[in-house]
């Protein structure tokens, strides 16, 4: 495990053309990492995420992606992801190949990847048109009952990027709260990069906590607020107002470009990004306002 700046972690491990998974289900979405990938101008990425959320909307709109594997592409609680729609409907800024699953299918695919199996099985996709548009969905026959069971090919990202609450100095990473498919995406990856709220001497991890051992972690970058506008349980809440505001910002290509230019390309790092939006606060100030 290497303890790096986020800039260096992305520079070193994220390459054009890779299959990349930024996981975290609503919670702990690695926005800072997604923005750094935009800043460094990565292209032709195959993005994988159950819920693309705003982070992929931004990366797709910024032209980083050639393909997307996903299972639900909305702005949670708000509506559409307009940049994703613009890419799918109009090929802007470039055409986007989509590989579409159900949540259960994606979960099975990550689980299979984590387990080094070539495919995952589920009682899924029954009676739907998804297998018609996603030829990856196939089936096997149960050798005991003769039933037909759906299969999905394992997901094995070149790099998985997560955001987490804590890492210790050996790179052990504590996940806490809503996990989504973080653990499976981590275990399925060839490389694992984690941004964290803090690096500590000893994890605040009770027995049976969800801890990723440091020897599975390629790099850790300490990025406080790295999940904003998503949230980090026990650290800061989801900025629902930003999710609502994004609906307006992202509807229009020019307005989107201006936002990306001002807040992502025009900022040096995540701290500057947070300051540019006026949501940053020093830890001291946080202590007082909590």
């Amino acid at each position, binding site marked *: 495990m290497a303890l790096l700046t986020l800039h260096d972690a992305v520079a070193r491990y994220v390459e054009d053309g890779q299959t990349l998974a930024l996981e975290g*289900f*609503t*919670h702990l979405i690695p926005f800072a990492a997604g923005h750094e990938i935009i800043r460094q101008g990565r292209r032709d990425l195959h993005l994988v995420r*159950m*819920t693309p959320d705003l982070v992929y909307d931004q990366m797709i709109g910024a032209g980083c992606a050639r393909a997307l594997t*996903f*299972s*639900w*592409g*909305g702005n*949670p*609680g708000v509506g*559409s992801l307009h940049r*994703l*729609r613009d890419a799918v*409907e109009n090929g802007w800024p470039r055409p986007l190949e989509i590989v*579409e699953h*159900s*949540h*259960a299918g994606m*979960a*099975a695919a990550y*689980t299979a990847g984590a387990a080094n199996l070539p495919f995952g099985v*589920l*009682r*899924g996709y*029954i*009676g*739907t*048109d*998804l297998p018609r*548009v996603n030829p990856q969905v196939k089936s096997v026959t149960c050798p005991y009952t003769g039933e*037909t069971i759906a299969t999905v090919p394992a997901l094995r990202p070149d790099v998985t990027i997560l955001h987490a609450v804590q890492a210790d100095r050996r790179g052990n990473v504590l996940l806490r709260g*809503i*996990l*989504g*498919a973080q653990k*499976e995406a981590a275990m399925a990856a060839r490389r694992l990069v984690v941004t964290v*709220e803090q690096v500590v001497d000893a994890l605040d991890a009770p027995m049976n906590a*969800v801890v990723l051992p440091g020897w599975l972690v390629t790099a850790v970058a300490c990025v*406080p*607020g790295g999940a904003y*506008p998503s949230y980090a*349980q026990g*650290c*800061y*809440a*989801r*900025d*629902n*107002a930003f*999710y609502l505001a994004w609906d307006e910002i992202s509807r229009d290509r020019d307005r989107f470009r201006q936002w990306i230019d001002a807040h992502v390309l025009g900022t040096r790092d995540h*701290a500057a990004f947070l300051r540019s939006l006026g*949501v*940053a*606060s020093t*830890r001291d*100030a*946080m202590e007082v*306002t909590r």
Partner: protein
Amino acid sequence: MTPPWTRDEMMTVAAARMLWDGCVCFVGIGLPSAAANLARHTHAPDIVLVYESGTVGTRPDVLPLSIGDGELADTATAVVPLPEIFAYYLQGGRVDVGFLGAAQIDRFGNLNSTVIGDYARPKTRLPGAGGAPEIASSAGQVFVVLKQTPRAFVPRLDFVSSAGFLEGRGARARAGAAGAGPQAVITDLGILRPDPETEELQLVERFEDVTVERVVAATGWPLAVAPHVNVVAPPTGDELRILRDLQARTRAAHARAIRVPY
């Protein structure tokens, strides 16, 4: 005369009443979440709410904006990895009721939440199926919540995101779906239920202030109507007060400014 409640409120109350105490409910965001939590705050205090984010037995004090809000984790009996929710809980047959919305529904309760127009060249790309395909097939039964318009209630779906009764007359069961399928569709005009034999949806209840004709006119196919169409009892004072309180608390909570440490 305008009733002292909105159509959304009536839908939410009608949906909440479908849930029974102790039932295990797989909840989607929006109206299903409001309905399930209204039920929990009224007649079903021991309803078990399961959100796909991995929170089991949550008792949120305010409604989540997203399916994975921190409030859900803080108040849950268990917070488990998402693959467990789909494999052990939903596919495992532990969920009694799944709540689904959609952009389009057909007469057999099949749903489209994926695309309007052709999949490869869509007119409107919708968010997609998410948890719906397996909720639709594996939950003990499904309740659909959807505003009734001819654009939404269509003769033919552009895309089948999740299976209702497919072509009806047992097609669903033959396809291998475990659950009983869409046993109720709660709209803003009334309630549809499948005919036991044909499995085609028919109007069985209407809201107080609408006529059967109006419901039929809001449907994109010739809607079957039950011999006796009952009237859904309007929301009680308690139901309305508790729902509005919940929504007021929710608005206040979600308006709070966020500060992020760095």
